């Protein structure tokens, strides 16, 4: 049996992944079979490529259907409860950097910290009759972060895209979103809170401790680790 390596089926994350492995002597090539893309891994024995939607990689790793997979730390921490019991960060890959941050309208000069946000939320609720809305797609991470900062009187509203625009569109008062340079937030008149960094994330090669690791897979893993300069984890 071979090691199943999951990489994103499209986009910049895929390009970065192919380059990263290529620089380490593991060549990934894609070919179009009708409407579907297929991929091969060359230059290393016993590794089978799986092209899969980036959002599904954390779940497939946790379920053990992938041995290795490339995805962002943000998605793993959001989607996999107690992820570190099942997944291992084999290697950071040096691209796809993004911070998950809490941002509020820049003109809120009274709100620079999470503690301010909590106090502002209490007043907001008294004035407007509903809890202060925070738009995000990272519900677990954000709820846990707000809880650890003792923030009350807020509510999460789901936003799967264009989250920065929710404040202008009056569907949220604040956002918790991924940003790399902060420019999109600024263009939307938002500012990151001083202690509003929830997570620093980057593209990462993960290993699944839940997958079947037979002798063949282990052999391939040792070779992968030697190419990428990672320590072989005990699986």
């Amino acid at each position, binding site marked *: 049996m071979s090691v199943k390596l999951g990489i994103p089926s499209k986009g910049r994350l895929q390009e970065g992944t192919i380059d990263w492995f290529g620089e380490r002597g593991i060549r990934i090539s894609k070919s179009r079979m009708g409407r579907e893309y297929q991929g091969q891994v060359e230059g290393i024995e016993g590794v089978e490529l799986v092209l899969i939607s980036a959002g599904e990689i954390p779940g497939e790793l946790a379920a053990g259907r992938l041995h290795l997979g490339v995805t962002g730390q943000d998605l793993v921490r959001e989607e996999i*409860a*107690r992820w570190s*019991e099942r997944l291992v960060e084999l290697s950071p890959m040096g691209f796809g950097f993004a911070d998950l941050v809490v941002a509020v*309208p*820049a*003109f*809120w*000069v*009274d*709100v620079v910290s999470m*503690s301010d946000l*909590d*106090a*502002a939320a*209490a*007043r*907001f609720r008294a*004035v*407007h009759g*509903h*809890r*202060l809305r925070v738009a995000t797609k990272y*519900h*677990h991470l954000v*709820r846990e972060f*707000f*809880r650890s*900062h*003792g923030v*009350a*009187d*807020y*509510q*999460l509203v789901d936003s799967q895209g264009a989250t920065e625009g929710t*404040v*202008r569109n*009056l569907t*949220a*008062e604040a956002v918790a979103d991924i940003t790399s340079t902060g420019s999109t937030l600024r263009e*939307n*008149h*938002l*500012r990151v809170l001083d202690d509003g960094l929830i997570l620093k994330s980057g593209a990462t090669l993960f290993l699944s401790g839940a997958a079947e690791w037979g002798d063949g897979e282990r052999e391939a893993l040792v070779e992968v680790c030697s190419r990428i300069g990672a320590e072989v984890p005990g699986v």
Partner: protein
Amino acid sequence: MVTDRAYLKGARMGAGLSQLDAEISSVLGVLMSSGADRVEPEVLQPADVLLDLYGEDIRARAFVTRDDRAEMMLRPDFTVPLVRLHAAAELEEARYAYCGPVWRRQEFGSERPREYLQAGFELFGASDQATADAEVLALILEAVGDAGVRFVTGDMGLAISAIDALDASDARKAALRRHLWRPQRFQSLLRRYGVDHALHVEKRRELVEVLNSGGLDAAIRDAGKPVGLRSADEVARRVRALAEESETAPLDPGAVSFLEAVLAVKGSSTEALARLRDLQDGQAGFAQAVDRLEARLAAFEARGIDPEELAFEGSFGRTTLEYYDGFVFGAEAVDAPDLPALASGGRYDALTRTLSQGDGMTAVGGMIRVEALAALRRAGA
């Protein structure tokens, strides 16, 4: 196993179920002996009502589902469902007894049950708080019986009164009251208003100077386009509140230690009362809360509950869902650390005010985890 229940093996059929049924009948028999009406609230409760009350954290603790009509939650307890039923019944004073399953989401990897039975009793609209509190505790004690259970009591009203009695600004008191149920945040607020006050004044110095020089409106304008529902006026109002806080003297260390002493009281109810009497000197308003405790203990005695034998902890009830605001109690199995709290309850007048968005009413109640109680009896048998 599919035949197992929470804390109780093989109790979904046959003899196991019969034993549980007997336990339920016995518990409900006691709870209804007070003249309570049996009620059965809906399993599916409107999610927005629970979210507005408990905040976003309830999402992590309740099962949420939805259809084309609304987002709903499987009832995580009976309190809110019962308050809603009682409001619909348009009665003044009423007693209700119930028994049925509740559902709780548990953390990943947790073995704690997601579904378990609660049997309970709630008393709405009673005019005398002390006798109502005593009625609830006496019924729960009787229903639990001599199963090897230790009861602990507390009083969130004391902590709230202690905050109100502080020589502190209304803003500080409101913030402390709001976070009483989040001990960590509460402690950090106490530091902010006390030992760390100078640090926070320094953090706000620039902003306060802008305000005092009359440049606040311009500063808000320059900081960014006013997007969203929260207005520039609301921002300005909070800046003025921050300036007031900066100009307020730090909280007196004596006030902080008074508050901490109230929360640290521990012992028999009789000892706790004596200790609180010692603490009340010079704290106007707080004495009345201690009077209420004394009246409650007298009502306990009238019901045959000995305050000398009833444990009291000043912090009890602070880490539960934030709705109890008076008498609170809980019960643990002495020799079965694996079992959860066998019973808990308390007074939640404020919750009824929030739910009705108006006057509200007095409300006190308690619940028993019937399966855990049956498991304890089975182990003891």
